[in-house]
């Protein structure tokens, strides 16, 4: 199957959906189902659009994008299914967002990536507009536009130096033309910042709080789960196959380290559950990009998978909880899980996995991260990661204990059976992967090699 259908089908359905509003939601569900089906049937390879080999736009399906597509499409599907009520008039937007997300993961062209970045960005603005906080969304829009503008500036500088936009050709061209690293610092930094805005990296992420602190389950899972994962994967591909960090690696590492630390510390100081989760998400994305920047692709992907699953559970349940109890102050949510044990179980498993305790997937990920960091002899970074995860563990434990044990009266909230089932399955998945990870690690083994293959082939067929 041609992977372009992953993008074309949602787009087609999006165009069709505005003709009659009634069909929008069914079309969305059908498109999602088709995409989920397609993801599991497409085969690896380089697919050209229009048949212009490496001179045109290509879609690259390797193990990396395949894993990303599977995770993102499945979670996207489940998010929509479990939040069917909130979808309402957003169906068309979600269809376009789906196309954008798949495009970001598939594309092998820098400018095409920019276009999809805009598509995803604009759909994200619209998705968050449901929060009734136009100023926050406007803020997001301004920052997103500046970010993608900077990305475009960096891209055009890169184009003028290398003469190509094909991601697989950039690195070989740099080598061929012997472009000095100092000349590449500016374009790569611009692109890094541009993507950093979307990836929630620290100095560029003042939009996150406004957008996510009042988000419902659908919005928060999409923004913090699906979109964040997509951006992280895209970022990861750029960092591992296109960017030559060279002289800017110090700035980049400082930015990422500060992101991690600030996210966790801010979460520690937060009193509201959605704030806690969103700051934790910021810190996690900092860590993910940090791993990519250090060339640790496999641990990064594992972390991404662990993250999207646990973020799905945490944000969905939190969304439902806030909907039901009309508050997101942790103090007034005390003991909510004593009436919703199954949901509480899923939430607990997800948080324990995020903390990185054994028997859960997060632990395996943490172990992998540290082993790889230490094999690079990154003593300071790994110490920082440990300190940060101590802070993270502290506030998550605090949160868990508060949510399980009440002091006064207990608020209740209702959760659909479907949400219960899905979160429970995800939670069990975290446990299963935490105990038996071999299939996953095996399938990740080939990722770095395959990523480099397209470069070695110079984007040829």
């Amino acid at each position, binding site marked *: 199957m041609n992977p372009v259908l992953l993008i074309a089908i949602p787009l087609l359905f999006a165009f069709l959906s505005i003709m009659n509003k009634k069909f929008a939601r069914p079309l969305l569900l059908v498109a999602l189902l088709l995409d989920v089906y397609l993801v599991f049937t497409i085969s690896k390879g380089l697919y050209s659009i229009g048949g212009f080999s490496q001179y045109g736009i290509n879609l690259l399906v390797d193990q990396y994008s395949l894993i990303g597509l599977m995770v993102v499409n499945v979670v996207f599907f489940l998010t929509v299914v479990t939040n069917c009520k909130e979808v309402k008039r957003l169906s068309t937007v979600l269809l376009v967002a789906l196309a954008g997300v798949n495009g970001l993961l598939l594309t092998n062209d820098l400018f095409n990536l920019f276009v999809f970045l805009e598509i995803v960005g604009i759909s994200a603005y619209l998705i968050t507009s449901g929060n009734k906080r136009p100023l926050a969304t406007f803020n997001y829009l301004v920052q997103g536009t500046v970010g993608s503008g900077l990305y475009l500036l960096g891209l055009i500088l890169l184009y003028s130096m290398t003469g190509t936009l094909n991601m697989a050709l950039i690195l070989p061209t740099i080598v061929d033309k012997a472009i000095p690293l100092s000349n590449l610092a500016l374009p790569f930094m611009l692109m890094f910042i541009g993507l950093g805005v979307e990836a929630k990296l620290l100095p560029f992420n003042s939009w*996150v709080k406004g957008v996510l602190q009042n988000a419902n389950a659908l919005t928060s899972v999409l923004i913090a789960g699906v979109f964040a994962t997509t951006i992280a994967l895209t970022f990861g591909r750029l960092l591992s196959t296109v960017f030559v960090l060279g002289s800017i690696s110090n700035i980049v590492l400082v930015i990422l380290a500060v992101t991690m630390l600030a996210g966790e*510390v*801010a979460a520690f100081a937060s009193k509201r559950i959605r704030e806690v989760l969103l700051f934790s998400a910021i810190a996690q994305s900092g860590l993910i990009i940090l791993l990519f920047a250090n060339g640790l692709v496999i641990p990064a992907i594992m972390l991404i998978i662990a993250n999207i699953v646990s973020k799905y559970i945490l944000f969905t349940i939190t969304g439902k909880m806030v909907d039901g109890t009309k508050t997101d102050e942790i103090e007034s949510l005390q003991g909510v899980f004593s009436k919703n044990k199954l949901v509480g179980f899923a939430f607990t498993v997800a948080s324990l996995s995020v903390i990185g305790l*054994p028997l859960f997937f997060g632990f395996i990920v943490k172990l992998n991260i540290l082993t790889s960091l230490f094999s690079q002899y990154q*003593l300071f970074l790994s110490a920082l990661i440990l300190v940060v995860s101590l802070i993270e*563990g*502290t506030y998550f434990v605090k949160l868990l204990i508060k949510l*399980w044990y009440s002091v006064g009266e207990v608020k209740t909230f209702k959760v659909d059976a479907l949400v219960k089932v899905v979160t429970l399955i995800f939670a069990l998945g975290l446990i299963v992967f935490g105990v038996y990870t071999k299939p996953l690690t095996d399938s990740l083994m080939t990722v770095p090699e395959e990523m480099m293959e397209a470069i070695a082939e110079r984007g040829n067929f």
Partner: protein
Amino acid sequence: MFSIELVVLSTLLAGVLAYIVSIKLPKLGSYLTILASLAVFSVLAYFGFNNNLDAEVNLIPQFVLFKTSMFGLYFAIIVSFIFFMVSFFNPYFIKDYKYPAAYNLFYLMALAGTIGVFFASNFITLFIFFEIVVWTSMFLIPLGKKRKPTVTYFVFSTVGSFAMLYAVMFTFSITGSFDLAAISVLSGKSALLVYILLAVAGFAKLGAYPFYVWLPKVLGKSPDPVSAVFSGGIEKLGAFIAFMAILRISPASIYLEAVGMYLQNYVIAIFGAITIVVGTLQAIRQDDAKKLLAYSSASNGGYILVAIAMSSSISLTGAMYHILAHALASTAAFLAIAVVHYRTKTTKISELGGMIHHMPLTYMVYLMAIISMAGIPPMGGFISKWLIFQAVINKQMIIVAVATFFGSIGSFLYVFRPLAALFLGQKLPKYKGVKEAPFLMMIPLIILTLGSFYIGVIPNQVIDFSNKVIAEFGFGPLLMNEFGIQGANGTLSAPIIASVFGLGVVVIAIIFFILPKSRKVGLMDTYTSGEFIYTEELLHYSADFYAPFERLYPAKPLISKVYAMIKEKVNELGRFFKYWFFTNKPEVTVLWIVLILTLLVWGDIL
């Protein structure tokens, strides 16, 4: 043959089973915990003593590897025994818990975790099980009334386990191996780093200075069986790690001629000494019986550290012995207090009195336990302390010696407080109908006391075992014969001391029974010169028991202020970041972008 893997897995499985059963029948589930921990203990003891444990791993995937060692076995048997003993209390307390099923699950999971730690063959296994113990036991704490200690426990435990993880990973990055033996290969600065980190891990878990503040919080506020398990069992993980760190790593450092040991060991000994002193001082001040015992646990951890740091045959035997003796005695003491708590619903010493009339057996158990903890013959604690004193004097460590003796004398003071005020003292009217412990609770109480007594009278078997253990670390055996242990400055003959002591008891008993009985007075029959008393509670025997001490120094450890400050600083930093980075202003982002780019483009010139 019985494989360790099977023990661990079946314990986990039993936990799940107990969980499922307890959803409907919590009490039945708690009986299951008794059976399961009995099974674990007996399997370990039986196959362990016969050298018949199988370390092979077939079912658990990935990094997990086991090995058998006398060292691990010693700990495993003690801890599983403690878990088994405490489990007898579970059926009585289970109904008080908010989530009884979870209690049963986590109880057995924590047991499985500890067994895994003690038999781990590589550091990854060790760490995995260590962390399992941390989080499962963490969830046992809030089942009682208080939630806050959970976080405290998590933080301190995680500091320890992360220090260990860092050490493990660091060792791995140098030696390329996760094997436990790999740390011995290290040398120079890296060895010192790993040594310090592992020591921190041990300190944190054992509750040594400066990490001891979690002990009173957790042990004082947890459900009673949990406190007992922590004090007697889980805390010993710290000793296990400390043993490995101090004995397996030999960083090059200054050799102190005066005391005949390396600087780093001396530092550890000093920290142990501080722990002893601080723990003792705080314990004297506590009004809550459980908190008091918690501080005493901390100070006993100090003894173990001092003993390990001196690393000689006699001191290590002392450490091993002390681990066992303290596990037995402190579990017994905690369980005795648990009985009191169960019957009277309070652990405040000042609210209790005269319990000896209601529960004489519990009183006896407690008495024997504190005798052991204070190091008085004929209990196990006496022998261990004697060994440690011998080693200290032998090494001529003045400061440490002073601290250990101070701790020993101090322990008279603090164990006497609950004894005198809680069990003895005057009966309070409100506890009129209070009865003796239920039958099932009596079993562990009696067994623990007898065990404590046994090792105090006949130390040979334990020393035999511990000789095998220290041989694994390359130390020669401690000499002994049927009558006594050969110390540096003399021989200790436990049976003789015990019989002399027994004789004394008999004589006193005869005197006590022959002499005329004293007049029994009313419950609150306090009097003062002609005045009518309105607030008779204040004049009760147990009120303001150690008032002079309480005036001397504050009840809260000074170090806890430091921790509170750290927490406040992190909070402040968080607010700072929230204010500067997460404001809802687009220009902040733009400003940062501009600044970073400016830094980049001018970076070469500036």
